[in-house]
């Protein structure tokens, strides 16, 4: 059965909550803008609500249903303990502006998590308030800019590899920088010599992803950092792929100045269909003093302090010898507490030994996929050394007229969410597969069999693939129409009937 919109099944008079009816005769102190009529919003009773969303949910794919091989996204198992902990009243039911004396446990969580992040990355400080990876990138770039401005050094260019995530150039631009590309070598890594040649007094920073989006470790990372530092710039590292190296390599040891960490990738807070995330930024000694407010910090006596506008000056005066020059505030309140509790719970569960095993198993699983597919599918960097936690393939060997999109949609009919496609841009028809460490060998073998099946069919040019998927809740959707004539809110039009889908005829 199709699931109607709440606007089609709800009414403005129905409500699923029990509250006293409004007495329109009662006097109010609402002033001139008091509503004459209630808002036009559809309501449903509780049974209808639960059923509507339960049925909707079943049109989704999710990690809980199967492997989710999205390269660069690290879709791993989300432990249920984390959800339970995040809902403890001392975390879920405290206000960000409560007197500090009433929230010592919350501050300890922030502090304990900060300690883990600093030790795992080998960095010096961490800004906890950024709301997601891209927000963290922005935070890091603003720290760099603040540090440069503090030394009176106006620079205007940021170098970004072509294979970078789109957020990197967007962030640099939002921080007021001009973006230039860094070329890559044949083997899929940053061209060190070309980069060195570009460095100069106008280059504020280099943004590197390591392991990079081709799935490779940047062997020359230390040399890159040294060169950038020598030229007076800073090194920003995109931490999206930290899952591959956590516990085995510390970015701080490679000369990184700033790196955001996606708690919702490496540390398993759930993606929730597009957020919320959390993007703390670890910083080198040079950048630490420029962290945004508010932050939490432990002083030498072991006490945790929450530092806000109110206390920032006095605090840094007392504890950091007055050198704190925070660039300001990036968001109201203290950041994604709900994600902090989950991430800390995950770290404590795994421990230092477990996190190291995470990286090893993630890399092992990715290489297993790479080597199980490379005879059938073009793997452009298969010869560039082991891949890290994701395996990259291209569409070179497909029959004419067949695209990566066709393969991806055919994979849906095999029961899987497709891999990341058409990213990174440097590989034609890119397919980036990241199995993560939470998949069993049996699950991988089953996935590889399906993947080989669709790859063979793409190579052979099986016509039916072009119309896949056949068995999903929807066939391919018309994205052009959606963009050309955007319908972005319910207008009252009745849904077209269309042909009944398989799943519709299937009843459930």
């Amino acid at each position: 059965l199709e699931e109607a919109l709440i606007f089609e099944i709800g009414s403005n008079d129905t409500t699923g909550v029990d509250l006293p009816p409004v007495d329109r005769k009662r006097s109010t102190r609402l002033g001139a803008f008091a509503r004459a009529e209630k808002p036009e919003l559809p309501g449903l009773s509780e049974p209808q609500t639960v059923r509507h969303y339960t049925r909707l949910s079943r049109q989704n794919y999710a990690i809980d249903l199967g492997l989710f091989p999205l390269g660069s996204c690290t879709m791993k198992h989300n432990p249920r303990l984390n959800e339970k902990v995040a809902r403890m009243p001392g975390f879920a039911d405290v206000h960000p502006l409560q007197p500090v004396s009433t929230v010592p446990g919350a501050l300890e969580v922030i502090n304990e998590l900060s300690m883990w992040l600093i030790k795992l990355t080998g960095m010096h400080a961490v800004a906890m308030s950024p709301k997601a990876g891209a927000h963290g990138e922005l935070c890091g770039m603003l720290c760099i800019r603040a540090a440069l401005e503090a030394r009176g050094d106006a620079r205007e260019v940021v170098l970004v590899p072509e294979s970078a995530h789109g957020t990197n150039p967007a962030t640099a631009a939002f921080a007021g920088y001009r973006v230039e590309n860094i070329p890559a070598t044949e083997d899929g890594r940053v061209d060190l010599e070309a980069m060195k040649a570009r460095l100069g007094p106008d280059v504020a920073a280099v943004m590197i992803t390591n392991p990079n989006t081709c799935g490779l470790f940047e062997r020359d990372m230390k040399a890159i950092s040294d060169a950038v530092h020598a030229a007076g710039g800073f090194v920003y590292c995109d931490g999206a792929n930290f899952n591959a190296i956590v516990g085995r390599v510390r970015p701080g040891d490679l000369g990184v100045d700033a790196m955001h960490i996606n708690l919702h990738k490496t540390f398993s807070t759930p993606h929730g269909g597009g957020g919320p995330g959390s993007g703390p930024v670890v910083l080198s000694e040079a950048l630490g003093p420029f962290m945004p407010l508010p932050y939490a910090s432990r002083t030498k006596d072991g006490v945790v302090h929450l530092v806000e506008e109110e206390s920032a000056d006095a605090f840094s005066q007392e504890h950091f010898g007055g050198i704190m020059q925070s660039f300001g505030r990036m968001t109201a309140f203290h950041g994604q507490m709900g994600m902090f509790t989950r991430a800390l719970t995950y770290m404590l569960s795994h421990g230092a030994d477990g996190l190291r095993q995470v990286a090893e198993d993630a890399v092992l699983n990715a290489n297993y996929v790479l080597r199980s597919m490379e005879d059938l599918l073009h793997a452009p960097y298969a010869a560039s050394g082991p891949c890290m936690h994701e395996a990259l393939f291209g569409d070179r060997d497909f029959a004419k007229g067949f695209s990566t999109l066709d393969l991806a949609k055919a994979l849906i009919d095999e029961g899987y969410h497709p891999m990341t496609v058409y990213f990174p841009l440097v590989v034609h028809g890119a397919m980036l597969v990241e199995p993560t460490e939470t998949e069993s060998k049996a699950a991988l073998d089953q996935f590889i069999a399906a993947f080989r099946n669709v790859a063979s069919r793409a190579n052979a040019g099986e016509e039916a693939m072009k119309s896949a998927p056949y068995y999903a809740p929807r066939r391919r959707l018309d994205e052009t129409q959606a963009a050309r004539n955007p319908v972005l809110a319910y207008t009252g039009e009745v849904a077209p009937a269309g042909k009944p889908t398989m799943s519709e005829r299937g009843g459930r």
Partner: protein
Amino acid sequence: MRYLPLTDTDRAAMLETIGAPDINALFSDVPQEARLDGPIHDLPMHASEMAVERHMRTLSKKNLAAADAPFFLGAGAYRHHVPASVDHIIQRGEFLTAYTPYQPEIAQGTLQMLFEFQSQVARLYGCAVANASMYDGSTACWEAITMAGRVTKKARAVLSCGLHPHYVEVARTMAKFTGDAIVSAAPDLDAGCAEDALIAEIDDETSCVVVQYPDILGRIPDIRKIAAALEGSKALLIVVNTEPVALGALEAPGNLGADIVVGEGQAIGVGLQFGGPYLGLFAVTNQKLVRQMPGRLCGETVDADGKRGFVLTLSTREQHIRREKATSNICTNSGLCALAFSVHMTLLGGEGLERLAMENHRLACIAADRLVEISGVSVLNDVFFNEFTVVLDRDAREVVRVLAEKGVLAGVSLGRLFPAEDALANGLLVAVTETTSEEDIETMATALEEILA
């Protein structure tokens, strides 16, 4: 390790398939000097679920949860009762553990929800189009200011004195880097919203005027008057709302002349959570502005069989397509919070939202009437929704501290929000919602009486 399914036997077999002698061979590209040869020093080893749960519970119990005290904090984060079914639904694995819906054929659950969410937000705000969420109210506010800059090609933003100081701070911080000019002032302890002073700041270079409704002191500014003043100007009127429940009792900003309406959605469905994750709402009254909007948009379309379906659309505005020319760098947003908001709003409906709002207002009136009886206390607001400002005869920070020791979470002192403004130091923001009982009000009033006596 309970989250890792591979056994040692599996690992050995897989290494053989790969052709690697051991796991270290797969990390051979890491420079020797950066390789760690064992677990990182000084961090604990793995622990059982029971041990971890105990540790976290100990930390949790150190905090005074709002449910365990008479509670009057607001200032941009509000405590409301969230029905149990909301949390049940957001914990469905199919919602919780799904990715951004880039493969629409197998993400219609999330997509239809987002379409419904956008439609709900648009109606709540009296707007044409809303996006699929931002991080929170403060970043949504800043994104609205930059959007106004793109639309008007001007760079001077005029902020009302009633805008939440954190939101002002975020704008000031970001403007430092983008070069925008931010005009703002702290509020006076006055019942009026200083609309005239704000209007006086508008000039030809102004990209936007930003007004909070209700404002940080709980006052309700005359949006219509400001909109009227902007007639003929290119500048956009941005209205910020931090308490969506208020819109069950107050006219929607979009109907009062706003061009962009942004706000914090936390109050519906999300919970306090010590400040995050929250839910940024973002909507525009004129659909033509949509191509300058930040963030994701979900749109209706049809599939190959002609059936209605939903997709993420207009992504040419976004970073993953447009890179440095994107309208924002936002990627991950607040999807699951948007779901919580949407479910709670569906349970409420227009009827329930109005009832909820009027119950908030009723209790807030009771609290204001009770507090004003206390000697040394005056109430600033003539009009308010569920939050108002009281002025004490001494620094409210200290009073809040002492009340906390007595187990009463009495509100947010203006000294905490505006540390640099001594003139505001005696102000205390008091928020009252349906979760506040009349008994709570009496407990706080009595405690306050004792302190001020």
